């Protein structure tokens, strides 16, 4: 489902502040698996996640997602591919604070031909599944951290993607909420979705749903645990 071959990502290339975030990494995640990118801050796990999520392109190497080499795709095709195949849950949730809960969830559907009322129906159904239907008209800034994360999950799922990527999803949650998040992810795994999570939280990488762990350090892949 996901394959990275000798991937390197350099930021600010050729400048004094050049950073090699990922260095010659090769990994593979099969369809329906839950993979964890594990490592301390600055290990390159978020950058590798961005490459898998098609929000960034590698400086060198090749990235294959759902059978397509996304590292070679022009921007507009990459955008379309990302919209159709990848749902992203960001570390800071990256919700738009002035928008309501339901409006945040429909954001990925706006540049699609789906009529606004259909998008809204779909978003409300997801929010109901996540126990957020009563908060749908709240501004997201009025929500707790756990509620905000459920909105971010609903938004990641609104396009019905086959792949979910999550960056440090439990970093801002207490244990109960983190377990709630893992329960939701587990259900998504049961639906057959492929999930990649970047984290250094033992609660996540010790969870029974996890199939493979990629240990990262200083931008390099140091160990694969299956």
């Amino acid at each position, binding site marked *: 489902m996901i394959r990275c071959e000798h991937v390197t990502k350099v*930021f*600010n290339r050729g400048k004094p502040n050049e950073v090699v975030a990922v260095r010659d990494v090769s990994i593979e995640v099969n369809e329906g698996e839950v993979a964890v990118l594990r490592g301390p801050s600055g290990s390159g796990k978020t*950058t590798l996640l*961005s490459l898998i*999520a098609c*929000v*960034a*392109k590698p400086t060198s190497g090749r990235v294959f997602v759902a059978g397509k080499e996304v590292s070679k795709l022009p*921007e*507009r095709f990459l*955008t*379309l591919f*990302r*919209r*159709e195949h990848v749902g*992203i849950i*960001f570390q800071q949730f*990256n919700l*738009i604070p*002035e*928008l309501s809960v339901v*409006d945040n969830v429909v*954001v*990925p*559907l*706006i*540049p*699609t*031909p*789906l*009529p*606004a009322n259909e*998008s809204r129906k779909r978003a409300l159904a997801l929010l109901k599944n996540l126990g957020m239907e009563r908060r749908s008209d709240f501004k997201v800034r009025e929500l707790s951290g756990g509620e905000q994360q459920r909105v971010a999950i609903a*938004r990641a799922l609104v*396009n019905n993607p086959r792949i979910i990527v999550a960056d440090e999803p439990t970093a801002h949650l207490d244990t109960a909420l983190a377990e709630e998040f893992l329960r939701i992810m587990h259900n998504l795994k049961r639906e057959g979705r492929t999930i990649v999570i970047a984290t250094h939280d033992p609660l996540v990488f010790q969870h029974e749903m996890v199939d493979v762990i990629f240990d990262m350090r200083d931008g390099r892949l140091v160990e694969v645990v299956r």
Partner: protein
Amino acid sequence: MSFEKHRNILDYSVNFLLRRKGKNLATILVFTLVVFMLASVVMMMNSLNHEARETLSLAPDITVQKIIAGRQGLVPLEYISTIQSIRGVSRAEPRVWGYYYDADEDATYTIIGVQSLESLPLAISEGGFSGESAVLVGEALARAKRLNVGDKLLLRDHRGEYVKFVVAGVFSSSSALQSADLIVMPQDKARDFFGIPSGYSNDIAVYVANPAELPNIAIKIAQKLPDTRVLTREQIRETYDAIFGWRSGVFLASLLGALLAFAILVWDRASGLTAEEKREIGILKALGWSTGDVLEMRTFEGVVLALNSYLLGVILAYLHVFYLGAPLLKPVLLGWSTLYPSFELMPVVTLEDLLLIFFISVVPFLAAVVVPSWRASTIDPDEAMRGI
């Protein structure tokens, strides 16, 4: 291309604008002010030019003035027979006129003496021309001095003595620029009022049957009467254009400074995309918005801002110029405004003017909104979100 998709993006743009009410209201305010000033100048100059052309349409084909010591002097009436002897001249008439300063109103009027009303083809809204002391007055003058038909009008003649006139009629406001400051009286009375000796006039109005012959006839008059200055209507029109063009040019040049400041402001506003805006663009891109979708959203936003400001500015300018009499511009564009009775400008707005204002205000604004957004939306969404 899906209509729904564009409607969705438009809805999001409007939502985006409403979320930043304060900032966008400030932009609309500045934008509207610039369009208002620009449109006011253009509308006023157009209207003045239109009125000037209307005035000229009433002017004689050729005006003959006597030049003494390089200045305009009185013309002997015997010149008329010399002019009439030239083939092609249909009519030559003496004109008696002068200026009168009214200290009470702090205004200067133009007094014209006519042999008959037919020689001054201006519409009269009330009254008629009868009696030796009868005068016709401009509508603005009548309003300023609260004169009605039948009222007395006292004016000091060239000796400084008061002369009593009776208002016999008021000119129609449809010829405001021509007649606003006008007092028309019988020619002999005007000659006596200004102290012009009989057998003389201020100038001679010449009418030509065939307009194609006009330049030749003007040359012949100048040859036969070498001590005169011969002015064709076309030459007077060029002088008018130069005066109005110069005034509006000076004002527009100073307005360019304001436009430049406006351009810098909008550039700063737009290019200085806040961290929040950049982050939002990054989020949208990460969530599957293409560069084109982001640009479409920002363009809609710019169009909504710019069109509202443009329409508001143009409407306010129209009201300012044609309903309020352009109080902000008159002192600049009409040098004689303090000496001239107030008058209403005839509304003249052309499509070309509206397009001109559109292109020098709306287009740069849209560019200033879209270009920085394009720059922000072409980088990797990951980098936009991290602020790298």
